[in-house]
């Protein structure tokens, strides 16, 4: 090796080494953040926090199916008691009344601080009279004999009122003492993990613990062999999705690598050429990941999953290099000849791709921006390695198998269509394009999928099962939340109380069915203090009570326990968060409080008036506005996340168009002829149109990933078109067949790489595969046909 070649090789190894170190030390994330905005509005931030670590993200729904109802109930109880001892779970509920006693004690003891009906008027003779009369009416109800024991202590019925406020949602069915689906086919449990939903590792551990606890519980229960465990929920989905993406990315990368390696071996018939040919790919991937790690601080798992996309284009460079430089026997001379004849074309193709991917960089969707940076740096690195390192590494006497016959065969296949006149080709292209456009226009309403769920790697069946369990639990997905926030917990609770008053009137007028509020579990200090101070002193209360009971047929003497309870409440300290400890109310309260740095958010989930009809958020927002609660936000979770995604899609479309414009300008500058630019771009645009029309025809709704796929068609296809454009200048027969051969090989490797993605279970990868594999093939076909030998 001469010193210059040695220096080049050393520099390359140094760069790859540094990149490898960065890659090894990079921080990899697998949570949802790749799908969430990098510059969120406050409302979006709430949404993001909710999705990542909010209480809803920590729920795991457990269903026990098969076996007898009795066996399911026994396993449910045994499983719950095991999980309750596990610190990974902050709450475990299966309908057993384990904390019922403590819940009742908490509510009963604090009823005068908790009931929003406690006012000074209520304890006047008239107020007491009305309240007690009401309670006596309750005694006449079918449950009267059960309620009567409350009367001496609670003649105004505050305890029942508190329970009423807390239990606005339907509770799940109970069979054999535990929660069960309405049809009785499954027993249900709900557990909340201590770790946040975005901590996928912790979620995976929690899921494993549930499996182990279930296995032990089922083994210890007689006749429970048939009982099956099923789980659902955000954490379960996140773990499954990660496994699925990892599995798909690893398996598909291996499979496509093997296939591409086999293809290249068959073509080159030289292991050395194969090893050298993979050098640009590997360097590009390493440097691409390193660039993302440096640029974003963390590499998203999704970006890695797309590593496969880079194989598609970067392997082409070395194919072009080996095949097209074969004309001269001396490798060094071959290299320099190739550099003169073809490097400018490859460079232009690479720059075209860079323009396309650069349009992803400004995206607010971190997943896309990372993909853009990864592709740009990876492609530039792969091209530079092909240009400068490969020639330096070529051993003396290096040669690959002659592929010219392959090119000749391809040329023979193309002979017929190539005999068509220019105007005929243009006409056919125009007709095809018009048909495709007409089809796309016809499908324009349903062309784009605007739901974030479209990107979810969770199958529709799993999502339906989740919905079934939530339906069974009566915890139909909360879609609409009212959120108030304040610098302190107490201030947030006070705002929640004001919002609750507005919501109560909306519930009365059936705009909403009901709502939950953290202030139902723990009222604000101000509200508690006001209630406490409205309780009259003992002597006053006794006198008021004497007057109030006149004509009620109730001797006030029998209400002595009431007098002492009120007196005790007057001297009792206000309730603190800690007082909720040990009750199931704590989990309920925590679920409705979301802490952000320096902010406390109180969440008031709304229940629809009619179960099947989503709540219209607008009248709710208007009512809050009228009540002077302008700062209260009404958050429709599904609408908000779909809006977010729709905004990304729109943004991505705009950015892609900008990228297309940049490509056009670049080609105009480089080729200096609008006609040549048109001849380069026309086959690519036609390929993109045909693919889009094909997807629309097969009722596939386009997502952001399809758009990325189209960008890839242009990126990969621009190389093909530019090569034909260059070939037209060379007018060499042998060169023509070599060009065709190299393009056919490059295209085959791309189609293999992306074609395999179609077999993945992950929708985003399928989207990419079904777009790029046919698109790349069509781009080559159209470019080849439209070029004249």
């Amino acid at each position, binding site marked *: 090796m001469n010193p210059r070649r040695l220096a080049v090789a050393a520099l390359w190894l140094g760069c790859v080494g540094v990149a490898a170190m960065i890659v090894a030390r990079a921080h990899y994330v697998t949570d949802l953040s790749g799908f969430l905005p990098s510059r969120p509005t406050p409302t979006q931030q709430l949404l993001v926090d909710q999705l990542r670590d909010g209480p809803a993200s920590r729920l795991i729904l457990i269903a026990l199916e098969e076996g007898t109802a009795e066996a399911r109930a026994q396993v449910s109880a045994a499983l719950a008691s095991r999980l309750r001892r596990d610190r990974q779970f902050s709450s475990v509920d299966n309908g057993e*009344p384990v904390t*019922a*006693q403590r819940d*009742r*004690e908490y509510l*009963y003891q604090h009823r005068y601080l908790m009931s929003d009906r406690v006012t000074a008027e209520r304890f006047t003779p008239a107020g007491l009279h009305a309240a007690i009369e009401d309670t*006596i*009416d*309750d*005694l*006449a*109800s*079918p*449950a*009267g*004999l*059960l*309620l*009567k*024991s*409350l*009367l*001496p202590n609670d003649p105004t*019925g505050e*305890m*029942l009122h508190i*329970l*009423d406020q807390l*239990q606005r949602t*339907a*509770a799940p*069915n*109970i*069979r*054999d*003492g535990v929660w069960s689906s309405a049809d009785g086919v499954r027993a249900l449990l709900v557990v909340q993990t201590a770790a946040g939903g975005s901590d996928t590792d912790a979620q995976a551990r929690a899921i494993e613990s549930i499996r182990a606890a279930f296995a032990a519980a089922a083994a210890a229960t007689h006749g429970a062999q048939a009982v099956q465990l099923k789980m659902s929920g955000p954490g379960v989905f996140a773990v499954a999705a990660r496994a699925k993406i990892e599995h798909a990315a690893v398996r598909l990368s291996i499979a496509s690598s093997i296939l591409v390696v086999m293809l290249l071996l068959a073509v080159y018939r030289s292991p050395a050429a194969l090893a050298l040919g993979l050098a640009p790919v590997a360097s590009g991937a390493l440097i691409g990941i390193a660039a993302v790690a440096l640029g974003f601080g963390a590499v998203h798992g999704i970006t890695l999953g797309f590593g496969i996309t880079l194989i598609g284009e970067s392997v082409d460079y070395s194919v072009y290099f080996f095949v097209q430089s074969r004309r001269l026997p001396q490798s060094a001379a071959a290299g320099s000849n190739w550099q003169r004849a073809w490097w400018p074309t490859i460079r232009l193709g690479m720059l075209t791709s860079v323009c396309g991917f650069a349009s992803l960089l400004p995206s607010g969707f971190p997943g896309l921006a990372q993909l853009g940076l990864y592709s740009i740096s990876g492609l530039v690195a792969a091209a530079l390695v092909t240009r400068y390192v490969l020639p330096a590494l070529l051993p003396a006497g290096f040669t690959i198998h002659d592929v010219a016959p392959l090119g000749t065969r391809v040329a023979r296949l193309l002979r017929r269509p190539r005999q068509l006149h220019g105007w005929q080709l243009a006409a056919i292209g125009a007709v095809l394009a018009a048909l495709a456009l007409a089809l796309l226009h016809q499908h324009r309403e349903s062309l784009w999928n605007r739901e974030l769920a479209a990107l979810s790697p969770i199958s529709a069946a799993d999502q339906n099962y989740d919905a079934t369990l939530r339906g069974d639990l009566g915890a139909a997905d909360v879609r609409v939340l009212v959120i108030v926030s304040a610098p302190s917990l107490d201030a947030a609770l006070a705002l929640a109380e004001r919002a609750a008053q507005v919501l109560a009137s909306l519930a009365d007028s059936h705009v909403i069915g009901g709502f939950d509020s953290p202030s139902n579990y723990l009222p604000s200090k101000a509200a508690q203090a006001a209630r406490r101070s409205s309780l009259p002193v003992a002597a006053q209360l006794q006198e008021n009570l004497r007057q109030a009971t006149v004509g009620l*047929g*109730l*001797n006030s003497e*029998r209400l002595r326990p009431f007098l002492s309870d009120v007196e005790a409440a007057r001297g009792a300290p206000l309730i603190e968060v800690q007082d909720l400890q040990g009750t199931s109310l704590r989990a309920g309260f925590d679920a409705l409080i979301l802490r952000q740095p320096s902010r406390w958010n109180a969440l008031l989930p709304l229940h629809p008036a009619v179960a099947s009809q989503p709540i219209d958020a607008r009248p709710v927002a208007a009512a809050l506005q009228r009540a002077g609660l302008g700062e209260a936000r009404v958050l429709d979770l599904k609408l908000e996340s779909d809006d977010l995604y729709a905004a990304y899609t729109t943004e991505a479309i705009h950015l892609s168009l900008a990228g297309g414009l940049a490509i056009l300008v670049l080609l105009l500058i480089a080729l200096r002829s609008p006609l040549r630019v048109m001849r380069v771009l026309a086959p690519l645009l036609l390929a993109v149109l045909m693919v889009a029309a094909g997807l629309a025809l097969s009722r596939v709704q386009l997502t952001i990933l399809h758009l990325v796929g189209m960008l890839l068609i242009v990126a990969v296809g621009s190389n093909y078109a530019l090569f034909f454009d260059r070939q037209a200048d060379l007018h060499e027969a042998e060169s023509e067949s070599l060009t065709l051969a190299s393009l056919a090989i490059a295209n085959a490797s791309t189609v293999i790489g992306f074609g395999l993605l179609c077999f993945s279970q992950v929708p985003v990868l399928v989207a990419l595969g079904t777009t790029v594999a046919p698109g790349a093939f069509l781009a080559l076909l159209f470019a080849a046909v439209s070029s004249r030998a």
Partner: protein
Amino acid sequence: MRHVLGLLLLAAFSAAAPAAAVAGATNIAPRTVAGDLDTVMSLLAQRRHGKVEFIEQKFLTILDHPVESSGELLYDAPDHLEKRTLLPRAETLVLAGSMLTTERAGHTRVLDLHRYPQVQPFVESIRATLAGDREALERTFHVEFSGTVRRWSLTLTPLDRQLQRSVRQVQIDGSQDQLLRVEIRQTDGDRSLMTLRPAASP
């Protein structure tokens, strides 16, 4: 809805309530006429539907006067019982199988009798009697029969110790296949008395 929550409360409060048992159980054990009991049961079992009006009075020691409610009672064989209280407040209570559904002021609640056995004496006594289901009655109560087919009386004593603490006896009087009177006596001396008469023809 509220009264159901009351039922949920019951576990705590009825257990805690002092079992102020009232002395004076002066009942002379009536002669059980096994044949007549079976005759009455089979008469009741033959009746597939029933609709009666009821007036229920609750005599509570805490109140000077009884509280009164009224409405309709509907029965469909074998296990569907519906109590529609119209006064003083409209409220519907439906017992189907082991599920008790209540509706009041537009709110519906469902609970499982298995989970709240303390509710059983109040509903199962009437339903099992209407069904003529002696076996079901004897699962929950010790059953004593007195009188004749023309004028019979069933005295039901809860078997469950927990239940015995709150409910002393349920007495159901009837004639042929008609229920006339249901009296629930609690251990603290409180009682409810429901008198039934055929509903006015629709």
